[in-house]
């Protein structure tokens, strides 16, 4: 029983990490409809930036979050404006190739500049174990859970209560109709990509103390992020959050009760089952609503 609860707590913490990383992808995939294979590399850029700010300039990782968010926002803007925008009307496969190419280029650029070693952010006060009763959890994990909830709630409110948020949702529903309504679609896309990347920036600041940075660190998260986004229903923030929680719990429980190397089999199987019975994802807005 003890182990089960520890596993569930671990699963929730893992889920909140996936949620933070996937929220940005929900925006990009859900609104701009671009399969951004370079999403993991945005996380990698963020993690290296946090490492440099913390280990070379002595900032606390949570303080470093602010410049990194801005840096990633600008990166997202540049990617959308110069790589995706020219390809918006092209075949989807071309867009995918572009992002895959970007991903490979970024990984190898990082390998060239920083080498293959791993870089760990020094943050002794974040990796401290906190005892919830007899169960172990890290301070950094609790912060991540709090931040994930805040981010999801905040973004949801933004998308539904502000004019910009409505414009984004309109563009996501129907690009041409939004154009007709006077929405500057290209600008919306740029802002959305920037926001999506900025979310990843926040995630990287929170993940950095828990996980060392390597050139391929993005690849550990990106596939799961896509699963979370589709599972949650593509455009829904809450969907991404609950999808991430489900994946996190299944990951943790199946690794223990079945086998650590089979956990992906389990959560991909559940993913497929959910899509068979609810093709639009858990919260709607998936394939069925086009």
């Amino acid at each position: 029983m003890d182990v089960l609860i520890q596993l569930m707590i671990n699963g929730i913490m893992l889920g909140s990490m996936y949620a933070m990383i996937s929220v940005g992808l929900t925006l990009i995939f859900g609104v701009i409809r671009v399969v951004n294979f370079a999403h993991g590399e945005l996380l990698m850029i963020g993690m290296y930036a946090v490492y440099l700010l913390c280990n070379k300039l002595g900032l606390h990782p949570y303080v470093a979050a602010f410049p990194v968010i801005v840096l990633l926002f600008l990166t997202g803007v540049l990617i959308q404006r110069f790589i995706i925008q020219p390809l918006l009307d092209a075949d989807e496969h071309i867009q995918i190739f572009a992002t895959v190419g970007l991903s490979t280029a970024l990984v190898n650029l990082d390998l060239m500049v920083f080498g293959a070693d791993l870089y760990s952010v020094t943050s002794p006060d974040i990796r401290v174990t906190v005892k919830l009763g007899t169960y172990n959890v890290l301070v950094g994990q609790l912060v991540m859970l709090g931040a994930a909830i805040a981010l999801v709630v905040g973004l949801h409110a933004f998308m539904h209560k502000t004019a910009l948020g409505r414009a984004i949702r309109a563009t996501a529903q129907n690009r041409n109709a939004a154009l007709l309504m006077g929405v500057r679609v290209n600008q919306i896309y740029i802002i959305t990509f920037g926001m999506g990347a900025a979310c990843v920036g926040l995630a990287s600041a929170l993940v950095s103390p828990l996980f060392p940075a390597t050139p391929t660190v993005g690849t550990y998260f990106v596939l799961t992020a896509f699963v979370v986004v589709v599972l949650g229903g593509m455009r829904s923030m809450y969907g991404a959050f609950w999808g991430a929680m489900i994946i996190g719990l299944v990951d943790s429980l199946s690794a223990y009760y079945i086998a650590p190397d089979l956990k992906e089999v389990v959560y991909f199987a559940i993913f497929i089952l959910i899509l068979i019975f609810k093709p639009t994802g858990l919260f709607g807005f998936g394939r069925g609503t086009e």
Partner: protein
Amino acid sequence: MKLVMRAAYAAGILATGLALSTGAVNAQTKIGALYPFSGGLALLGDESFRGLELATEERNAAGGVKGQPLQIVKGDAVDPNQAVGEARRLTSVDKVTVVFGTYSSSLSLAATQVTELAGVPYFELGAISDPITERGFKNLFRSNPTARDFAASMVDSIGDAIAPALGVDAKSLKVAIIHEDSLYGQTVAGYQTKRAQEKGVNVVETLPYSAKSVDLTPVILRLKSANVDVVLQTSYQNDTVLFFRQAKEQGFKPKAVMGAGGGYSLRETMEAVGAANMEGALNVDFTQYKTNVSAAPGITEFVAKYKAKYGIEPRSGHSLANYVGAKIFFDAMAAAKDFSAPAIRESVLKVDLPVGATASGWGAKFNEAGQNTRVSPFVMQWQGGELVTVFPAKAAVTKMKTGLGSN
């Protein structure tokens, strides 16, 4: 105009004369060096090459092989496809006499097929996958220990070193084998399981996991639930860091943890985990530098030569392994009738060096498959942020500690 033509003629004659004369005077033996010099494996590929380079320079300073200096021709093998291409270039365009390599098993497996077909001897100095020398090749020779040797060393040390240090019966220890699930981890773990069965070691859990794991807590909780005493891990860098961090966070304190090289041997891993957390972690790998010189004669001189040439301490034991292997094969080449493949094979099979005769502490006796049978990896331990050799006693610089973590 006439002056220009005359000058051109003169230059032409001079150049031809020079070319002919240098051709005659500088007869060299070309040796190929096939390593990953770029890409993800570049760090240790380059480190491995440095061992070969040092051995070659040393040999040339002493007169070369059969009176001729050795000239290295580099081949960059980033991946198996390129390894094949470079091997072809080395053998058919550069026409090297022999090829040295390779650090990475998959690169070696690919490149050696080319050299075997071309009838060019291939000297493997650092890749550990056993199948490399199990294909019946006649011109392939390997000086370093294999995955099976690593696995045997790890399992045997439970009974020979860990149990005595803990003061318990080896059969009473609960052992777990955990490993990353690619070829490296599966190979070593497979041999460990077999050896454990032979030696009667009680393996209570075998857990493969992905090296790209984001979370190893379930693995650790399984080990905790089974009350595991000794963990044998085969892992790369990222999963090693994760394991140590999360084991501490979950309060899992086994009596001993042992790695099979990989992430366990790297300084960056220790720095990321923290010297205090990694205190006591055991590791089986190529000979590292804090080793008793009586078991590894020449090791101090090697480190001095390395520092003199490259300005830093050796980055890993790979350079030493390549240096030792290259020297063994240079001697074999010198003793051979000529540089033809059958003559080299005959000479290599005659090599007979006892254990403890080389700077890495290995001996040299090659079986029919070309594999050196006198190699047994030492056991090292992280103590005070340094990787020191603790077993066998002859190679040890200090006593083995028990337990994991000094905090």
